[in-house]
């Protein structure tokens, strides 16, 4: 067997997830196959079968059960992990609430895939974004390295704030695309991520029940405490991102700023689309000397209000790219950005572009056209949705 950790490998995004789980020393994995996630658990099965990863792997009969198994395992104090996509995530929905309400630091990798029908297996963020209110942290990844890093990072955060984390990667664009990924030496990861020491757990021969019926006199406060945990995460994330950088070499923030110093036009992106935007913006800067930059959103929940306001305050215009759609409303990121900016006096106009649904390709040319479109819009010409690429 070749060396598994402490090396750089050219691997797919799916396998980056697997390696992230391996390095995180997950103890219980439970999953159900679904395209395009399947490779994640295939690789993990191999790790477990080979004894490389001393974990229990539960091959369940549905995603609902996969999440339930993780919940049980996590309640028993184990570090639990699962991966899914689209329909699978939707099927898990009930248990996503359960995991968060039980304050269990489970980590889930969701490969963004469009919701059926009609059947579609390509990238689209609607599956994960529609889990907005389940109490999960959500982090969107741009590269396979970020995918691996986010698995480790998510456990670190989740186990401190006692909320589950979902890391999101694009179907095929990341999941099935090979990139060089540094697979850290285990001891360095261990330095960053200590073993899970559960605060509330099922300890044999000790009394205590988890999740008993709570009347209106306490339920409200339990919800309040989840919100407090989210706010704690906002404060914790940059610090842990720094620490991650110190120990493992890559710093992470709530967001990533790309060529923003002097930018008057800001593209707000998430996921793999960011790379395309960066490429286009970089070319535009070089060729047309336009002051354009990219704000890559990493965390959707908790939403980094302060950071977004600080960055976007005073810009001339903001264009938000949404590879998702909340029917009857619009692009989800754009509405989040708009609500974040609302308290600002000198808030920039926010143009929301819905594009690339169901894996429709988004090219640098599309990005350039969006920038151009935004530049030519009247300040108040802000329809809820600006369709990009739809054949009307």
């Amino acid at each position, binding site marked *: 067997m070749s060396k598994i950790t402490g090396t750089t490998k050219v691997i797919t995004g799916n396998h980056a997830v697997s390696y992230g789980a391996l390095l995180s020393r997950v103890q219980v994995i439970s999953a159900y196959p679904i395209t395009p996630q399947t490779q994640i658990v295939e690789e993990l099965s191999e790790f477990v079968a080979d004894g490389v990863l001393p974990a229990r792997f*539960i091959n369940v009969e549905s995603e609902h059960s996969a999440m339930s*198994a993780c919940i049980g395992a996590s309640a028993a*104090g*184990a570090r639990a992990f699962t991966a899914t996509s689209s329909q699978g995530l939707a099927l898990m929905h009930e248990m996503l609430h359960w995991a968060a309400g039980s304050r269990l630091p489970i980590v889930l990798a969701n490969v963004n895939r469009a919701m059926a029908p009609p059947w579609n297996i390509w990238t689209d963020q609607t599956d994960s974004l529609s889990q907005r209110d389940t109490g999960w942290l959500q982090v969107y990844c741009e590269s396979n390295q970020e995918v691996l890093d986010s698995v480790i990072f998510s456990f670190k955060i989740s186990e401190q704030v006692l909320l589950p984390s979902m890391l999101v990667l694009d179907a095929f664009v990341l999941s099935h695309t090979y990139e060089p990924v540094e697979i850290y030496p285990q001891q360095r990861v261990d330095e960053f991520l200590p073993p899970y020491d559960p605060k509330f757990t099922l300890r*044999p021969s000790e009394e205590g029940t988890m*999740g008993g*019926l709570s009347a209106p006199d306490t339920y409200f406060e339990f919800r309040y405490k989840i919100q407090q945990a989210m706010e704690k995460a906002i404060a914790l994330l940059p610090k842990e991102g720094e620490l991650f950088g110190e120990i493992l070499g890559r710093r992470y923030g709530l967001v990533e700023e790309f060529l923003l110093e002097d930018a008057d036009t800001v593209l707000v992106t998430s996921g793999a689309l960011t790379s395309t935007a960066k490429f286009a913006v970089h070319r535009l800067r070089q060729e047309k000397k336009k002051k354009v930059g990219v704000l890559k959103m990493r965390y959707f929940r908790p939403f980094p209000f302060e950071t977004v306001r600080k960055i976007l305050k005073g810009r001339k215009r903001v264009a938000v790219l949404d590879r998702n759609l909340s029917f009857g409303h619009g692009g989800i990121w754009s509405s989040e950005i708009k609500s974040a900016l609302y308290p600002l006096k000198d808030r920039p106009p926010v143009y929301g572009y819905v594009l690339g649904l169901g894996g429709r390709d988004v090219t640098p040319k599309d990005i350039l056209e969006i920038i151009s479109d935004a530049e030519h819009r009247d300040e108040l010409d802000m329809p809820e949705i600006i369709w990009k690429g739809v054949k009307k």
Partner: protein
Amino acid sequence: MEKTSLNHRVDTFTWKEIDELENVYPGHLACQGCGASLAMRLVLKALGSNTVMTVPACCSTLIVGTFPYHSLKVPMFHTAFETAAITAAGIKAGLSVRGYPDTTVLAWGGDGGTFDIGFAALSGAAERNEDIIYVCYDNEAYMNTGIQRSSATPWGAWTTTTPERHPEDKPKKDIVGILAAHRVPYVATATLAYPQDLTRKVKKAKDLKGFRFIHLLAPCPPGWRMESELTILSSRLAVETRIFPLYEVENGKRYTLNYAPKGRPITDYLSTQGRFKHLTPEQIHYIQQCVDENWAEVMEKHRLTHRTTEGIPASGYQ
């Protein structure tokens, strides 16, 4: 054939097989005469303290206590309606890697959470031979929500969704047969009036590995429309009239009938409960026929295993 002592008692402290250990606190919120709460008490006595339990939505959700109280002396995790079996499997996996490989994990679900909504997870856990004990306390309808029919509701019964004008017209799902078809190590039926049989089965299950299932008939006085003091009596009559045979299935194939009562007319059982009071003589006759057929089937399965139907304990008492 294994000798079974059923309810071998009357003598002075006769319940020697039954642990004095209490794993349930009084003060819980079960209705008067609740069979489910007694079932829980008896099962947890037999399983002992090194047990972790999970309960999906069901009456027991409340019986185990509302926050910040609990009525159990073992740790317990509340889980969603359809997930008892898999949550238990997850807990088992978690405990194993956490250094508690010997802890018994008990999934404790009602008939709705087992026969109906939790059926997929149950089947999955059974098929994978997850190392858990699943006890379905069957009160034959959705009692917690107010007596709606489930696939465990017997033919002819009144529920709030099968009114007397149109009572339940489908037979009770053969959950034991279905579980046995999964070829799991152990499936057994048990009920409250036969606590020694119940205890023996729970302890036997505890000593086995893999997926173990106990179908435990737990009368519900409000749901069965009967007086609260008749819980044990109705449980006993279910067995004595043969509508609920006490038997076990090992590895999906070895059927053993634990007790062959002389049999009593099914009316003895039906008449204890208001949920059957609308039945016509013809309908009762039909139920009797079904009971007889079922009984013959279980006897036949026992015969196939043991080559004889002789030697089945013929008494449930003393």
